[in-house]
């Protein structure tokens, strides 16, 4: 019983039992007492004999409320049935009708749906006359447009899917298409909406009866009892509260059932991201990272990363998706949000960030100039006018034509390349010592990619800022960077110059990564080179080298002991028991095999 493990499932079960109990047993247990008049106890307040008092004829209010459950809930269900049936008919018809008729029907539904349901129900109550059943029809018909709209939307979304297109190609008729292919696929959201709709119908029914337009005496439902109770509210407030409480409880029960149905039918996703620690400015290196770890509960996507970036140096951080490279970048910028936990040391000067998607990284509601200028007004205490002037100058620096005009535009008026330039201009507003660029060109087309990379190089040369470029694309990194850090499963496995990367890296993973990049000479008749197997997930405990299961050079030791990161004599280094040495390059010095594992910072995995 998966459903019983979560609180909503339990609440839904309780609601269902509650509703069934009231509807089935309410009239049986309390039906007689509900109509028994007692002239000795007219309009009494709360007492032991009558927990909610009595009404004008001496009938017990509590018994009447309980006995009214069946009619109240039953009529609400009738109204819902009318609404769903009518909505399905009206909403599914356009799928069967011709284009013109369907358009007219859709237009009609969208006009009617604008009116509040209660108002339509009131008008329909005039037409249909008062009484329980006609009120149920009035409420049901009033919610037909909403259900029709829902059906239309759902049917349209299904109609766009591949299997419906395939059925159409096969010449499946419209009606058959509707019943075989479309309706079964929109059933689940409709059930959810119908359950929630039943709660709404219950409340609407109580409202109508309360106004005296629904159930008529001597019949009674919760709405009518509420009306009677309110008339004597100064004598016995409980008589007004009791039916109200019943309505709210039953309404809640329907809502909980609907919520639970929604949870069962469709998964829910939660948003998780948050804020981090500020980076501290330090002299010397542009960035020092020591034993950086980022964990999300049991998952540790970044497992002890250490590196430094010299002033003005352009360093690439590469790796496949999930290697922890983007999280490392966010941690450097202090932007890892709870529940993420960052440990280790990060010493960074003023940092500018350039993000992957220029389409979403600028605030759509603010002018470009405002967004660029506010860095200067908040951090450099510049006046608005000076900051705006500087923003325009920076936009000119990033080669935006008519920078003053662009400053007055909104992000949606700019192209992707222009926005990424604006992001870089924003970063250049201060005096950054480091520009962290997280996949800055991934969302752009190839010609624009090159321009942005050139711009980053230029920005770094003229401002003296170092660049940390995060990318999965070795070609992009090779264009801009002089040094490359290769990340795999949360650790840096190799640190090498771009020349070494091209000439022949030492780590088998870097080699595999390089081999998977197609170039002009690649034989197109062969499949693209891929790396077999998959990267261990951040939550998996890893003993030994994380790449070992996929590595052609791996042996017993690779599977049991994590290779330490060993610095090469000519700078850089590699974490591998069996680095590739044959293709030139300086010898990689490796410590003794007996080196105590405990001292190795890269070994500590949770």
């Amino acid at each position, binding site marked *: 019983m998966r459903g019983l493990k979560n609180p909503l499932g339990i609440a839904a079960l309780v609601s269902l039992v509650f509703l069934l109990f009231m509807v089935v047993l309410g009239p049986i247990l309390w039906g007689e007492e509900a109509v028994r008049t007692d002239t000795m106890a007219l309009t009494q307040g709360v007492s032991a004999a009558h927990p909610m008092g009595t009404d004008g004829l001496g009938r017990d209010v509590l018994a009447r409320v309980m006995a009214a459950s069946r009619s109240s809930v039953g009529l609400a269900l009738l109204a819902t049935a009318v609404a769903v049936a009518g909505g399905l008919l009206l909403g599914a018809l356009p799928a069967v009708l011709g284009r013109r008729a369907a358009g007219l029907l859709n237009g009609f539904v969208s006009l009617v749906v604008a009116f509040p349901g209660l108002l339509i129900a009131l008008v329909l109550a*005039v037409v249909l006359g008062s009484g329980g059943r006609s009120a149920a029809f009035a409420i049901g018909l009033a919610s037909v447009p909403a259900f029709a709209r829902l059906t239309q939307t759902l049917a349209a979304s299904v109609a766009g899917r591949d299997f419906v297109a395939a059925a159409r190609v096969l010449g499946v008729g419209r009606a058959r298409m509707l019943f075989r292919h479309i309706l079964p696929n929109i059933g689940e959201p409709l059930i959810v909406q119908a359950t929630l709709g039943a709660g709404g119908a219950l409340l609407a029914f109580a409202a109508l009866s309360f106004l005296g337009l629904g159930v008529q005496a001597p019949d009674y439902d919760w709405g009518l009892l509420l009306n009677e109770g309110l008339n004597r509210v100064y004598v016995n407030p409980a008589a007004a509260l009791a039916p109200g409480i019943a309505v709210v409880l039953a309404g809640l029960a329907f809502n909980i059932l609907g919520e639970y149905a929604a949870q069962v039918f469709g998964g829910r996703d939660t948003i998780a991201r948050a804020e981090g620690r500020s980076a501290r400015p330090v002299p010397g290196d542009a960035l020092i990272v020591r034993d950086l770890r980022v964990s999300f509960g049991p998952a540790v996507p970044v497992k002890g990363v250490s590196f430094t970036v010299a002033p003005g140096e352009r360093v690439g951080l590469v790796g496949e998706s999930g290697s922890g490279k983007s999280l490392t970048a966010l941690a450097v910028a202090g932007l890892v949000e709870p529940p993420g936990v960052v440990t280790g040391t990060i010493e960074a000067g003023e940092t500018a960030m350039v993000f992957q998607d220029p389409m979403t990284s600028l605030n759509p509601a603010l002018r470009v100039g405002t967004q660029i200028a506010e860095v200067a007004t908040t951090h450099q205490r510049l006046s608005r006018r000076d900051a705006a002037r500087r923003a325009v100058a920076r936009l000119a620096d990033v080669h935006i034509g008519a920078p003053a005009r662009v400053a007055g535009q909104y992000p949606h008026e700019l192209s992707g390349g222009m926005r990424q330039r604006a992001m870089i201009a924003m970063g250049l507003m201060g005096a950054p010592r480091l520009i962290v660029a997280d996949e800055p060109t991934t969302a752009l087309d190839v010609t624009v990619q090159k321009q942005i990379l050139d711009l980053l190089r230029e920005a770094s040369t003229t401002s003296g800022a170092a660049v940390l470029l995060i990318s999965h694309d070795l070609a992009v990194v090779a264009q801009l960077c002089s040094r490359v850090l290769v990340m795999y499963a949360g650790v840096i496995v190799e640190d090498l110059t771009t020349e070494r990367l091209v000439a022949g890296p030492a780590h088998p993973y870097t080699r595999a990564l390089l081999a998977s990049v197609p170039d002009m000479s690649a034989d197109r008749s062969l499949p693209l080179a891929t790396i077999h197997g998959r990267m261990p997930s951040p939550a998996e405990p890893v003993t030994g080298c994380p790449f070992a299961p996929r590595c052609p050079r791996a042996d017993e030791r690779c599977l049991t002991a994590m290779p330490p990161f060993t610095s090469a004599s000519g700078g850089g280094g590699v974490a591998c028991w069996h680095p590739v040495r044959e293709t030139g390059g300086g010898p990689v010095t490796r410590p003794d095999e007996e080196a105590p594992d405990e001292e190795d910072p890269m070994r500590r995995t949770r």
Partner: protein
Amino acid sequence: MAVPSPPLDHPVPPPTEAAPARERRHPWVAYLARRLLRFVLSMALLITATFGMVHVIPGDPVRAALGVTASPELVAARTHELGLDLPVWQQYARYVAGVFGGDLGSSMVSGLPVAQTIADRLPYTVMLALVAFAVVMITAVPLGMAAAAWTRGSRGRAAELLFTGASGLLAVVPEFLLAVAMIVVFAVTWELLPVANVSGSVTPSYYVLPTLALAVGPAAALARIVRVEALAVLSSDYMRTARAKRLPARLLYLRHALPNLLTGALTIGGLLISGLVAGSVLVENVFVWPGLGSALVDAIKAKDFPVVQGVVLVYGSAVLLVNLAVDVALGRLDPRSTIKED
């Protein structure tokens, strides 16, 4: 759409400035035209529906209104008076002409002109709805934003539970039940606030309970929506950009998050107004408020069709006008919504 130029004293080349401005005005005009057409069509539907209402009632509406004891002569006279003996298309023409001429007929019960009844009662309903709407917007947006700021990521689990629980409960309790509960608590038990005034004058203290009853549910619903919207906005890439700029919280929330929330809040707020209009019918009846809502219910009970028609017309057109206003405001507030259009 005239975009006021930002405070930049950089020389602006006039020709490049003028051309895009003209291009930008065009979709805005088309957008307005589409919205107005939609409004006109909806009004036509509303007028036709209120006219048709009387004609689809089973039996003789005049007989139903006057009761079984009325003499056949009286019924015939009243039928003639109302023009119900004319061909339907002539009746329709008369009705439409009447609506545009401000003549909505007269009550079958009191004989008073319907327009007069509406003019007397409309101000009370409008005041009630406006005050309630103001209360909703003023409380819901800051509440929702604060809740989002507190419960972002996985922080503040208890606060989240409290907020979603309380607002969820308040949002599903219908206004008339809330009204009854408030009467029991504030008027009957504690005797703090007045409920209904039979003498006719409505002082500010009479507004407290009805507006609260009307506003609490929509405010809770809106606050929930604002929180969810705010969570999405706060975790968006551009907010990450803003945090990367190390902006103080005030700028972060007020300048970067709020404008992106307002469009959503306003859309839902607009939808809530139609709900408020419907809810006011009930609340007015609970508090014996001298507005249109109680007039409508009385007229329905008395089968006083001309009054029902008139009041429904007023309610319906109010809802349509609000929807139109929200769409126009959205077009101005959110520079993108004029472009992406159904």
